[in-house]
């Protein structure tokens, strides 16, 4: 499988990349990790006229926690998996990074690419929905911060303008008594999710849920936020009953379609099961467990 020909540029400054993108009339694609884009190009299902390679732009790969957690868009998945801050304070993100594709792919795949590609089967979107993250984008008109709820528009479609580039992911600082987990079911290692569920909880002093975030992978045209499931938890103790109610709600909110990863009813049920498991782990983590 051989990609169609294209023009290639590797700008060394972000402004330059944005400028090139803006001048390309929608016929250019930015290249980050390339682990989704290049296979599409090899099948000639994507034939961009121009590739703008972001990998020569310094300063786009980092994990920093100052006030909030900031992850540079070019941060590789492997670096998320291995980051001490992520592992200790945001284990839900480590959970997520560790199940994306396979370990070799994760050496190149980037968090920004995973989000901007907006594949409903990608894993970060659900987690970022659960965490109430925001996406920082830069374009010719400057920088804008897009709430994650406003970011995913449709399959492969985001609210980014054609001349905007994702530069950073921002995640609210991990509060005390908060915890989250991402649980994915796949047909085999390296596969896209049959279903993935991200759950994040903030508990109050009494152990009741004050904020709940639940994101679902690959059961809709985009990653979905299971709002009714979240609502089923808020103000309540995250006990078996509340978790079961939330899991049922998430299953009802999911919009799976039948495909090689199973029939609709199965997927819906797996949403329920994985929501239960993710919430249990989130509760344990919020209460100080691993």
């Amino acid at each position, binding site marked *: *499988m*051989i*990609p*169609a*020909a*294209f*023009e*290639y540029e*590797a700008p060394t400054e972000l402004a330059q990349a944005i400028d090139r993108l803006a001048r390309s009339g929608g016929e250019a694609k930015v*290249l980050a990790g*390339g*682990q989704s884009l*290049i*296979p599409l*190009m*090899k*099948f000639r299902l994507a034939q961009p006229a121009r*590739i703008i*390679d972001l*990998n020569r732009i310094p300063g786009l790969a980092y994990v920093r926690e100052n006030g909030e957690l900031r992850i540079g868009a070019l941060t590789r998945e*492997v670096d998320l998996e291995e980051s001490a801050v992520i592992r200790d304070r945001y284990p839900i993100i480590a959970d997520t990074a560790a199940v994306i*594709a*396979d*370990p*070799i*792919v994760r*050496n*190149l795949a980037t968090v920004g690419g995973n989000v901007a590609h907006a594949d409903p089967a990608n894993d970060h979107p659900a987690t970022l929905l659960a965490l109430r993250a925001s996406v920082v984008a830069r374009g010719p008109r400057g920088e804008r911060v897009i709430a994650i709820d406003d970011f995913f528009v449709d399959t492969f479609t985001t609210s980014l303008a054609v001349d905007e580039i994702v530069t950073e992911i921002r995640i609210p600082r991990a509060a005390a008594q908060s915890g989250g987990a991402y649980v994915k079911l796949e047909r085999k*290692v*390296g596969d896209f999710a049959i279903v993935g569920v991200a759950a994040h909880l903030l508990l109050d002093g009494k152990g009741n849920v004050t904020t709940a975030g639940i994101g679902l992978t690959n059961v809709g045209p985009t990653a979905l936020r299971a709002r009714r499931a979240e609502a089923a938890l808020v103000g309540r103790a995250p006990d078996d009953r509340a978790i079961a109610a939330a899991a049922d709600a998430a299953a009802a909110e999911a919009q799976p379609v039948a495909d090689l990863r199973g029939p609709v009813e199965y997927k819906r049920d797996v949403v329920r099961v994985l929501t239960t498991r993710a919430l249990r782990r989130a509760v344990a983590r919020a209460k100080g467990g691993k």
Partner: protein
Amino acid sequence: MHVQLTVNGASKEADVEPRLLLVHLIRENLLLTGTHIGCDTTSCGACVVLLDGRPVKSCTFFAVQANGRAVSTVEGLEQNGVLHAVQEGFTKEHGLQCGFCTPGMMMTSVALLERNASPTELQIRQAISGNLCRCTGYVNIVKAIQYAGTKLREAKAEKQPVAAGRA
């Protein structure tokens, strides 16, 4: 486009189309045919090489992206006629049959052991889960990596007293 890169320690240059995949640069331009191609979908890992020390699938990377960077392939593992511990492990433990997945599998193993000299069986299995083998059932590949890990640890242990003495 003109690219310059270091391959197995030696500087190489080539004029390439932007769409040329790194694996084709390695195989067809540089004639290092130990790196193989087994799929179209970044699934099999037969094409794994090290890019600045990290294993990547060279079928999912453009040659132009490698400009100025260091690539290591299976041909660079043996140094001065001495096999790398991973190469030795694969043959001692019968970790290969048809040999087609072997170079990619070994490059992944080399990178694993450089980061973690004492991986558990689970860590080994996770590390090679992006490399498919159709012949061996992986059991002996796991043993081969364990063999190499032991050998590398022993070599390091032998070296360290000397280094300490110098210090």
